[in-house]
């Protein structure tokens, strides 16, 4: 049992919040209940949770909107939507935006818990990938424009001489740029760099 709840639940209905807290507790998961989207956003950081369970239909900000807001802020944990009767199209839209799944009320409760548990696992992978991507992006951002030009050219497989001719700079300079690119990107060769960048879209 973790003292810090890794699951955040947002539902406007107190009975549902309580019942689900019970349900997750019966399976050994701690749940942080929030009565509204605003309450979650007001909390210090939603990304610390490993899974989000959001009710689609709520007074004020709905689940979908909350999800989009969180996505714009940074890492968003895997999310499961709870939907009522007739909310299916909205739930499908949520899936397309990166939600893990949706589950219709009244739901098969253990199926929900299993889904959430799958999310918890998913969270570790996603979080790592997200971190890596962030790192590559950060490194790329450190490159000067000239270095980016040089990098683009040698990733195309061009030789230093060709790059020098194309950019009208000396071979030596190209070599300096190349070395700095590799250094800044934290790789040892162009092949490694290409692999790194292939991960990043």
């Amino acid at each position, binding site marked *: 049992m973790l003292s810090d709840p890794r699951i955040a639940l947002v539902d406007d209905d107190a009975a549902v919040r309580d019942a689900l807290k019970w*349900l997750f507790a*019966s399976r050994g998961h701690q749940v942080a209940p929030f009565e509204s989207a605003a309450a979650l956003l007001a909390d210090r950081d939603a990304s610390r949770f490993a899974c989000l369970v959001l009710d689609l*239909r709520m007074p004020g900000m709905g689940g979908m909107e909350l999800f989009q807001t969180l996505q714009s802020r940074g890492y968003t944990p895997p999310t499961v939507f709870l939907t009522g009767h*007739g909310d299916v199209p909205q739930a499908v839209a949520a899936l397309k935006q990166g939600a893990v799944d949706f589950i219709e009320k009244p739901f098969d409760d*253990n199926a929900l818990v299993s889904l959430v548990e799958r999310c918890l696992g998913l969270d570790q992978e996603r979080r790592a990938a997200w971190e890596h991507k962030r790192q590559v992006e950060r490194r790329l951002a450190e490159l000067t424009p000239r270095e980016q030009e040089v990098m683009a050219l040698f990733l195309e497989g061009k030789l230093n001489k060709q790059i020098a001719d194309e950019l009208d700079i000396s071979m030596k300079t190209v070599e300096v740029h190349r070395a700095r690119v590799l250094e800044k990107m934290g790789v040892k060769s162009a092949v490694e760099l290409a692999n790194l960048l292939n991960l990043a879209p």
Partner: protein
Amino acid sequence: MSRIKPWLPRPAALQGEPPPLSAAMSDQGKPQAAGDRTRLIVERMRRAFLLPRPGRWLWAMPNLALICFLAVGVALLLFIRHNERQRQHDKLVEDTLWQVQTLRSEIAARQNQLDGLAHDYVRGNLSEGAFYERAANIMAGSPEVLAVAYTNEYGDATWSYPAQAMVPLKLHPAVIEPLQRSARIGLPASTPPFDFPGAGQAVALAFPAVQGNRTLGTFVAVVSLKGLLRVYVPWWIAKRYRLGFVDIEGETLAARPEQPLPDPGPLVYDIAVDPPGYGLKLRAVLFQTGWPLWQHVLYWVLAGLSGLMLWSLWVLKRHMRERLSAERALVQEMNLRQALEDSLVSGVFAIDQSGRTLHVNRAFCRMAGYSAAELLGGLPPFPYWPPETLPQCEQVFAAILRGECPANGFSLRYMRKSGERFDVRLYSSPLIDADGQQTGWVASMTDVTELKRERVALKASHERFVAVLNGLDAAVAVTDRRNGELLLSNRAFHEAFQLPPAEGPLCALPLRDHDPDGEWYDPILGRWYQHHRRETQWVDHSNVWLDIASDVTERKLAADRERQQTEKLQQTARLIAMGEIASSLAHELNQPLAAISSYSTACRNLVASGQLSQTELDGALQKIAEQSRRAGSIVRGIREFVQKREPQRSACRVGDMLDTVLSLLAAPLNRHHVRLKEKRRADDIVLYADRVMLEQVLFNLGKNAIEAMAEGGEANRVLTVETRVREDWLDLVVADRGPGIAPEDVEKLFLPFYTTKEEGMGMGLNICRTIVENHQGRLSVEAREGGGSRFVVSLPLATPMPLKEAEDHAV
């Protein structure tokens, strides 16, 4: 045409003449009649001899000349006469003097002869015989001597020749004394005239024979005065004068011819004859021969000429007066003609046979913008012929010269001096002079520019009117009210009612019998029209109908479509609303159900893991029960919501209710071309019911019936609405001739959400039945003989009125 001569009086001035004679005459009866008469005469004279005021100065000259001429003539005559008299007088004096001189010399000669005798006697040379001889001699030589005598110193006549002469000498005292005196003083003497017998008056001349201081005797010669006149007055004097001797008293002593002489006068001249003296005078009287012939002739000629002159002057004056009045009439006529011509708006010009411009009037000048001087005498091409229509102008001109003029005249375009063009209509006719000879052509022209412009504008206006009228989609027609003759119609009208091409009066009454100012369906072409009719006055003041029928088929179809769409929309909205209600209902119910599910799953999980404590289970079950109650309350809420729709009852008359429903149904009836058949037999029944709800039921039934018939043949589209009382029930029947309802469907009919319509919710009949049942009635349906369905709403007549509602109603 000549202008008015400047000096000619204007007609207005002519009217300022002195008052006419008759007016003056009428004043005669007044006290100052005498003065008036004088004035009248003067006036008449003035009028007779003087021309009226205007010609007076002109006539003063000949009048004055005539007067002067007459005056001078008379003066000349008087002068000549005076001159003649003077001359005659002078001549008279001269002749008389000459005559007296002659007489004196003769007398002197006699005295000399006596002196000779006396001398001889004194000398003694004279004997008696010699005396006689010598006396006879003397008498022979001087016939006037009547006698010669000698008296002695005593005065006795001694010798006398002739002898008898002595007696008168002796007797006559007038003779004695001078003889004696002569003898006494010894000087010659003469006697006063005395009457000598047989010879009239005579004088005696005495000459004394003096010897020394002694008078020896006296020689006497008696001279006849008559004889003197006869002998010594020459013929040329006698012819002119009457001569005679008068004594001192003026008595005529002798005269030639022997008549008493007149008293002294202008043509009488007296000269004393001395000797003999004694106041004896020779008197010469000019014969009153009168004027000489030439003078008479001259006078008469003069008088005649003067008369002639006066007469001719009078004739001339009369002629002039006539001329003047004729001239005045002419001037008036001229003025009238000038005014007529000047006031003409038609331009007139005259040309001679060669085409030379003879005359243009003011209107023509005004039109052409040229002065008359610029146009007169001009030959074609005229300056007002514009270059672009020159050939046309020449053609017309040639036609005029040929004497051709169409009945409508020539239509031409002329040019003003300013270059502005103007259209004229030109008519020509021959110009005939006073002798009846044609001397040219007169053409009158009218400026039709404005007319043409107006005509063009009118035509354009008419074309616009026709274009607008024909461009209208609405059919417009004007028909005579009495006989229905079509007076005016537009294209749309002809097309709409497929009228044959009209060749004569046409009677078209497609709109005649329809309700004016309403919609009308034309079954022939299947079109809808909005029809407006106005009674108005036609151009000939007859009463006509003005019908305007706008084809509203499209609009109506569009409106129908729109209405259908609206209804569809409303239905969709209702669907959505119901969906939302259902959705929110589901959501509402889902919450407690989801909670219950979660609690129970949690319990089961705990049971499975063996961790479930008694307390936990109790709490969970409690929560489950709570959520169940919550779900129950939601369901109850829905039921309560439905239960709130209780009928609001009031007393309502069946007839009023039906009227409302049928008025609501009018539109669908119309739209689907369904005829309505009413069999109302219970209009006066009063129900105690929710009028709006029942109306809704009937409306729904009616609408369903109409829609059921919409697909079938039009002939069968009859909606029957019937009311009847059957025992304690009131039946409201709505029957159609639609496809009917299959017997197996009748049961499903009233189920909720059962519908045969695409857009239907399937709630209508269900709700209707609920409403009817709320009114303790029944809604039933049955098939009709001959096709169609019959819906019957049966309501109990004796509806018990709840006490409370009755009180409410009473309040």
